[in-house]
């Protein structure tokens, strides 16, 4: 038996911080990065007698996310207390929705190597974030700015089979929360965090293995690595005849391996019970209708449209729509060109190395990139020149049409002009011409190189090569 005989069974729990300006139960600001303990009040510090007051905006954000993920919205849900002691939790309980979450059911469709896969969502619930501990040598400090910041936790069914699918799911989920403006979805600021539940089984089996949980992973890359390393660890244990114990493990970003947390932390009993300070959360049909009416076009909708209108592949359309900014950019740029395919290539091949994991800022105006696609599509410049122009545009946003004109970069498509250069090349390189005639095809590349040199790289390469071959054949 080997690794190839096993498969992972993965479920994700994704925490997404809502973008509401105020916390879930008090008026404090949720802005990221403020000095420690400056966004706090007696309520989120859990002073005696303070009461939570549910911020309805957070409820609507959760509903918006739920609708965008095809969930059922509970007409009545409620909050529960999850009781445990930790210094970043001033109330000694987290307010969450354990028994009756606001959204249930739902799914996300993702494009993977093996085609489209549907990952089912079990539930989405609203809850509050905890604070942050800052550890020093002999003491720790508590920053309560995040205490009470609203989160939704999205729990999937164990439908994911690989790290690739997990990452594809996360990308899609992030796209949805960004499109709907529910969250920033920034993993580096912790506004999107992921717990991974993973078990393994032999391929073809339908039962589940013992599940291991990995908590709080905060980048796509780490999620992928954690899954791969944990999968190998579990396979190794089973191969040696061992058994996997249900536990919580931590992924170490430096070593790329997972290690067990103390048993105590994984065997907690949170003593959930309904929070008596917070009433039922009611969401009526009118609210749902209003939120649906204000729903922006979502990635899947855009994707279908791109595939239809611009004849893009699943992969291309998914990449373009994975980020709302990028998709918006594409939609602006595509208006400026008659060559959408060329535009997509520019974005996905030439620009994508510039995109960060959380940020997709295109340092160009969509109008310019559209114009560049047109220059390429109309054969006014060749692809080499195109790359050069793009490089200049990235340094300083320039109108590519004017730039090409000013610098005389337009492709030479005129057969007469090309013919005189080709004739000169053929005449002055008799040896290479002969080599080619004797079947040494690489000689043609040298001759083409000469043509390009003579034209400062502006010769239409396809036309020039055709004419070169014809000239050699004619002169034979």
């Amino acid at each position, binding site marked *: 038996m080997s690794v190839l005989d096993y498969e992972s069974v993965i479920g994700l729990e994704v925490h997404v911080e809502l973008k509401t300006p105020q916390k879930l139960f008090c008026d404090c600001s949720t802005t990221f990065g403020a000095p420690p303990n400056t966004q706090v009040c*007696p309520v989120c510090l859990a*002073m*005696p007698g303070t*009461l939570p007051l549910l911020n309805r905006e957070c409820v609507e954000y959760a509903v918006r996310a739920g609708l965008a993920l095809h969930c059922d919205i509970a007409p009545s849900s409620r909050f529960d207390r999850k009781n445990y*002691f930790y210094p970043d939790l001033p*109330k000694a309980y987290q307010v969450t929705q354990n028994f009756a979450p606001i959204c249930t059911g739902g799914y996300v469709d993702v494009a993977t190597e093996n085609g489209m896969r549907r990952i089912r969502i079990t539930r989405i619930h609203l809850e509050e974030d905890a604070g942050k501990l800052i550890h020093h040598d002999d003491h720790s400090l508590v920053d309560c700015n995040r205490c009470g910041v609203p989160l939704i936790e999205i729990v999937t069914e164990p439908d994911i089979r690989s790290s690739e699918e997990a990452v594809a799911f996360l990308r899609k989920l992030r796209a949805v929360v960004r499109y709907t403006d529910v969250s920033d979805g920034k993993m580096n600021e912790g506004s999107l965090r992921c717990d991974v539940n993973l078990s393994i089984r032999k391929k073809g089996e339908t039962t589940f293995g013992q599940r291991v949980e990995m908590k709080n992973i905060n980048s796509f890359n780490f999620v992928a690595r954690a899954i791969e390393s944990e999968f190998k660890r579990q396979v190794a244990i089973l191969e040696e005849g061992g058994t996997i114990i249900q536990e919580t493990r931590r992924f170490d970003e430096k070593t790329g391996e997972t290690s067990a947390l103390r048993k105590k932390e994984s065997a907690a009993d949170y003593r959930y019970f309904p929070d008596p300070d917070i009433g039922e959360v009611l969401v009526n049909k009118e609210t749902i209708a209003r939120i649906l009416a204000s729903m922006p076009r979502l990635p899947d909708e855009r994707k279908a449209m791109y595939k239809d209108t611009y004849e893009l592949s699943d992969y291309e359309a998914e990449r373009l729509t994975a980020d709302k900014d990028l998709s918006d950019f594409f939609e602006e740029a595509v208006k400026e060109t008659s060559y959408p395919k060329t535009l997509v290539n520019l974005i996905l091949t030439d620009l994508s190395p510039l995109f960060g994991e959380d940020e997709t800022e295109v340092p160009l105006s969509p109008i310019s990139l559209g114009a560049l696609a047109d220059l390429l599509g109309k054969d006014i410049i060749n692809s080499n020149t195109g790359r050069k122009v793009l490089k200049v545009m990235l340094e300083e946003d320039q109108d590519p049409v004017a730039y090409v004109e000013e610098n005389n970069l337009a492709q030479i498509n005129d057969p007469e002009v090309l013919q005189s250069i080709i004739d000169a090349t053929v005449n002055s390189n008799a040896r290479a011409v002969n080599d080619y005639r004797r079947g040494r095809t690489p000689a043609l590349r040298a001759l083409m190189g000469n043509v390009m040199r003579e034209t400062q790289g502006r010769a239409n390469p396809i036309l020039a090569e055709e004419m070169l071959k014809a000239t050699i054949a004619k002169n034979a």
Partner: protein
Amino acid sequence: MTITDMTIQELASALRKGDLSSYEITSTFLNNIERLEPSVGAYITVTKDDALSMAEEADMSFREGDDPGLLAGIPMALKDNIATSGIRTTNASRMLENFVPAYDAYVTTCLRKNGAVFLGKANMDEFSMGDSTEASAFHVTHNPYDASRVPGGSSGGSAAAVAAGEAVYALGTDTGGSICQPAAFCGLVGMRPTYGLVSRRGITAYASSFDQAGPITRTVRDNAAVLDAIAVRDPKDGMASRFAPVPDGGYVGATENAFGNPVIGYVEEFSKGLNPSVRGALEHALQFYESTGARVVSLSFPHLEEALAAYYLLTSAEGYSAINRYDGVHYGYRAADAETVDDIYMLSRSDALGLEVKCRVLLGSYLLSKEHYDAYYEKAARIRTLVIQAFNTLFNACDAILAPVTTGPAPLLGTRNSESLNGQYSSDRFTVLAPLAGLPALAFPYGLTQEGLPIGLQLMGPRFSEGRLYMLATAYEDAHERLPRPRLLHELRNGNNHECP
């Protein structure tokens, strides 16, 4: 008449006529506090300077023709679980011995707006967990009618202060009888309002689905006047009722409503195990109401024992969760020798929480655990629903229920804890019912036993029937002599003359 014998209405009228100043009234009560506190122990903190400056402010507004309302210039006491900005709010716990909130409870704000004068913070059972005020971390409070007896609890300091003439009135809070029971033991009127009528914001939570603040006063009209001031909807208490119907003319107005021909319910199960003096009180009061034109109907309450159990389970569960925030990390007491986080939790809580609190925290923790949740919490929640339904049925048959508050008069100090847990808790069986169902209950004094100990009765009604309960109790009060003041006060009066000019 002495100042300390005057009602809110009488004091208010003297203030407006200029016969008395708030400063004089307040000074009189502060003097009483100084003399009586050693033998009563009603207060944890006396805010003498604050009280005098609030009194001066009230006098100033009267001089300037401003009239903030009936309570203006009248000195009172707040139970020490009600947050007072700048005044320490200890909850009678070592844990919060030095805790000074930066905020007022909503009821505190209401009273300030009405020009009330704060004499100080009243003793209580630690975190309101107890029924005799003996669970205060600081000192016991003596019943002014008999210093060897408890004042009741958990609002025992509030009741003792009013009974002893150390405050005109007081606010208490109720979770399962903490207003009505001490009011009864101290010969006073105590209102536990409908859940959701009075804001809980700024009042330390014990069991959030039960807690309500309410007035403890010497007369029914005084009580109604205080409820008028604090029954103001708080948009920031998420459980406050948006539909609380306050009667026209307020609760004071309701005390003057016509008696008519109300139907008063009498629950047969309630008469079991009563001390003869309480049984007699109940019978006489029923006869009185019948003779006044009421119809008395005999009813049955099916779930008495289960209700008591459900009450203790639910309040312990909620209390466990509410108390856990006092963990030594963010504020309050922290054990000096704690080295790790776990030490901070364990040592601070072991040191600074009292036995009664620990018992309830342990009980709550046990019954909420995964293995026991269904058998205890879930079942108790179902019983609560049954109790609410049972009351609905009863109130289809009557307008109000007349019931005992306790099985007997105030017990001796030090005897509560030696009783079995069961015995201690079962004496609460009449006072937990209204809170369990979220209903109002009004305790009013019936009279004194042969030993001179007060006996109280209570009226329970449907949600938001406070006005009706006040009207019924006023009818009783108007037809009977007011209880004599405690002996303590007579002795004091012999030596000191505080006659009204």
